[in-house]
């Protein structure tokens, strides 16, 4: 995707520059990518935060486990110290110690050392201060051990003092334990309950040991108690029983502590220990304590000790188990959260990739296609790889637009080709017409002298080809023949008809016998004229150069004009039906005479029909006037004058009709 984008980034930008407005650098692609990036970063942040949260919980429990080890060690040293104190007190009383107190002290010292070790690993807040305190207690314990080693075994007072020292040390250790507990706190309610049990057990243990120390010192006879002190002692003993029912309920309810021996301890205190201690108290008050009573009480104390230790061991086990379970659970949660985060991120990246590939990419491609089309590049529109219906519809529309553009281009091309072909055809046709016009013109005789007459001519076709034609030539009998033809209409068709008429008339005139006049020739032409050909008007004349006599026939053609010397122009003829209209036109020869210098004007009606810009025609009357005014001029000038007058009259330079004029002068 990125490679593709990079490769195409250059050309579209150059194109964009032309098509975008003054603003608008922001593209849909950039916006989408920005949104995707922002969202992705947010998601990643959230995942990291959740992971860190899990991690810190995991750290908390693993820390708790290490702190717990410190506590165990510290408590072990405490218990060992108290154990030793009790044994020393029993020894002072003269009883049998359960163990060698020196062993207990060694155990206490080892535990303290272990405390120091685990303290370093536990990383407690204020751990350094606690370590200093522990080291100090170790020193004190060392001192007590040295003193004890040098104490005589039978010196009761010395032994009792060592026991008291140990008890004081145990008390210090207890407060140290509380410091650790306060410094770290409990991670959850379950551990809070565990601590509650522990504290209860330690409290019971402590109380019983304190009472034992007090009673033993009295029994040993080291001091005599006051009545108040005895009451206080008895109250201490009974205090532990008040809390007992609550703890039993708790033990039964708490899932962690269930199955421990807490209830055994409570039951024992209630049923065995307290009566034993009360018996001692009564004995003291009575002033006589039997050794059996003392022995039973000491056994009860030892039993409480034992039960306390068991309970603590159970508590520890529960705590370890609970913390271990929680640690495992936190670990699982951490792993799960990492897996979920990873999954979510992978899913997100897949989605983003999908959007980029299937939306952003196709959009860019469509933009390129649009710009391409706009620039007139009509290569096929590619197929978009996107599931989006609207993009597909747009792309489809682009295909339609492209086809429209292709068709438009082809139509344009075809139109240009058609124009070229029309132009070529027109050129060809014009060339044909020009060739035909040349042929038509070549039929017209040049001006000149013929058989005693001078011929001057004027011919002008309204188009390239005209329907007018004329000819003059010498007949075999020496006479001169003249004709003029005007086929209705103009252009190629009329010109072809005029050629046919020309040939027919010339042939008919050539075929005239010496006594025959032009009407005979006209009749011949009319007879042979095909019904389906257009009619035409014509005038034919035959003149004798020797006498100046002639005759003419008028077939729908304008009246010819005779220009006599010194006389006004005169119309000749009597009208007549055009050729090709009726089978029996009834033409007849009209005789006339041209004296030397006299002229005959023969012309087609195109002269009359020239129109000015109001649409009125030049007309016969105006023409007769014109000819009258110009009658003194030689023929060439006369023709030039007529042409100039017609040109003046004409609205445009272009004459409406074909015009032809032949002037015959007798010389």
């Amino acid at each position, binding site marked *: 995707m990125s490679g593709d984008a990079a490769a195409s980034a250059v050309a579209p930008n150059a194109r964009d520059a032309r098509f975008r407005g003054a603003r608008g650098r922001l593209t849909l692609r950039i916006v989408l990518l920005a949104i995707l990036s922002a969202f992705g970063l947010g998601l990643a942040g959230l995942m990291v935060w959740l992971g860190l949260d899990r991690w810190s919980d995991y750290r908390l429990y693993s820390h708790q486990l290490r702190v717990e080890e410190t506590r165990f060690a510290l408590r072990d040293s405490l218990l060992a110290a108290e154990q030793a104190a009790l044994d020393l007190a029993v020894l002072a009383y003269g009883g049998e110690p359960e163990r060698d107190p020196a062993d207990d002290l060694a155990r206490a010292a080892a535990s303290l050392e272990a405390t120091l070790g685990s303290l370093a690993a536990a990383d407690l807040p204020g751990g350094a201060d606690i370590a200093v305190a522990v080291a100090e207690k170790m020193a004190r314990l060392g001192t007590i051990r040295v003193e004890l080693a040098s104490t005589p075994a039978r010196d009761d007072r010395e032994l009792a003092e060592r026991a008291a020292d140990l008890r004081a040390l145990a008390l210090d250790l207890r407060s140290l334990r509380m410091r650790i507990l306060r410094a770290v706190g409990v991670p959850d309610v379950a551990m809070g309950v565990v601590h509650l049990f522990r504290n209860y057990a330690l409290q019971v243990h402590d109380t019983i040991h304190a009472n034992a120390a007090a009673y033993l010192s009295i029994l040993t006879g080291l001091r005599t108690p006051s009545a108040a002190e005895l009451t206080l002692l008895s109250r201490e003993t009974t205090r532990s029983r008040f809390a007992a029912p609550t703890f039993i309920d708790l033990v039964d309810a708490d899932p962690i502590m269930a199955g421990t021996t807490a209830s055994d301890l409570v039951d024992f205190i209630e049923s065995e220990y307290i009566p034993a201690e009360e018996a001692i108290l009564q004995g003291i008050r009575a002033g006589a304590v039997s050794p059996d009573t003392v022995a039973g009480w000491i056994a009860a104390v030892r039993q409480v000790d034992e039960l306390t230790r068991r309970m603590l061991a159970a508590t520890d086990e529960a705590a370890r188990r609970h913390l271990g379970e929680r640690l495992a659970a936190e670990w699982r949660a951490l792993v799960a959260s990492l897996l979920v985060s990873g999954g979510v991120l992978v899913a997100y990246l897949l989605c983003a990739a999908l959007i980029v590939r299937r939306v952003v990419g196709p959009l860019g491609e469509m933009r390129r296609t649009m710009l391409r089309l706009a620039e007139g590049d009509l290569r096929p529109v590619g197929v978009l790889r996107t599931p989006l219906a609207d993009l597909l519809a747009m792309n489809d529309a682009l295909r339609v637009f492209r086809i429209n553009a292709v068709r438009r281009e082809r139509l344009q091309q075809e139109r240009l080709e058609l124009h070229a072909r029309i132009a070529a055809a027109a050129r060809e046709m014009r060339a044909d017409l020009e060739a035909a016009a040349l042929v038509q013109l070549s039929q017209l005789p040049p001006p000149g002298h013929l058989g005693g007459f001078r011929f001057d001519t004027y011919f002008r076709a309204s188009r390239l080809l005209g329907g007018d034609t004329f000819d003059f030539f010498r007949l075999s009998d020496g006479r001169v023949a003249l004709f003029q033809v*005007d086929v*209705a*209409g*103009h252009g190629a068709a009329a010109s072809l008809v005029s050629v046919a008429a020309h040939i027919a008339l010339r042939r008919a005139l050539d075929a005239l016998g010496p006594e025959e006049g032009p009407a005979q020739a006209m009749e011949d032409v009319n007879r042979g004229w095909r*019904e389906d050909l*257009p*009619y035409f*008007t014509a005038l034919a004349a035959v003149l004798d150069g020797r006498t100046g006599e002639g005759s003419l026939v*008028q077939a*729908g*053609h*304008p*009246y010819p004009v005779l220009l006599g010397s010194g006389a006004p122009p005169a119309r000749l003829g009597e*009208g*007549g*039906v*055009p050729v090709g*209209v*009726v089978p029996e*036109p*009834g033409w007849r020869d009209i005789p006339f005479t041209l004296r030397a210098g006299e002229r005959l004007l023969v012309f087609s*009606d195109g002269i009359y*029909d020239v129109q000015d810009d109001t*649409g009125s*025609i030049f*007309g*016969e009357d105006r023409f007769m006037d014109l000819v009258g005014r110009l009658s003194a001029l030689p023929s060439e000038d006369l023709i030039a004058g007529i042409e100039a007058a017609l040109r003046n009259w004409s609205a445009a330079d272009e004459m409406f*009709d074909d015009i032809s004029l032949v002037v015959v002068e007798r010389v």
Partner: protein
Amino acid sequence: MQTEETVQDGVLVVGVRVPRLEASNAPEFRRTLIERIEAGHQQIVIDLAQVQFIDSSALGALIGAVKRMGALGTIALAAPNGTLSRLLTLTRMDKVFPITETVEDAVAKLAS
């Protein structure tokens, strides 16, 4: 091209209502006349009163109509003005059409 057609005494009177009959409208004029002939009109009067000018193409149209009519019927020209009259005289169209001064004369002539 504007024409006005009425039937009087069984005679179709075609009034030409344009001032000029020339190459530009002659073919249409010719078609109109031939349609009437083919529709069965055998007596047709062409009222030329309003026509100022007629050229050879228009004359051709009239001649064509007459040829089409042949011996079946008659086409008459009525009320040609001066210029037309002169042209009709020049070309001796009286040999081809009955030509009358007024439409009524023509109708009377054809109806009889």
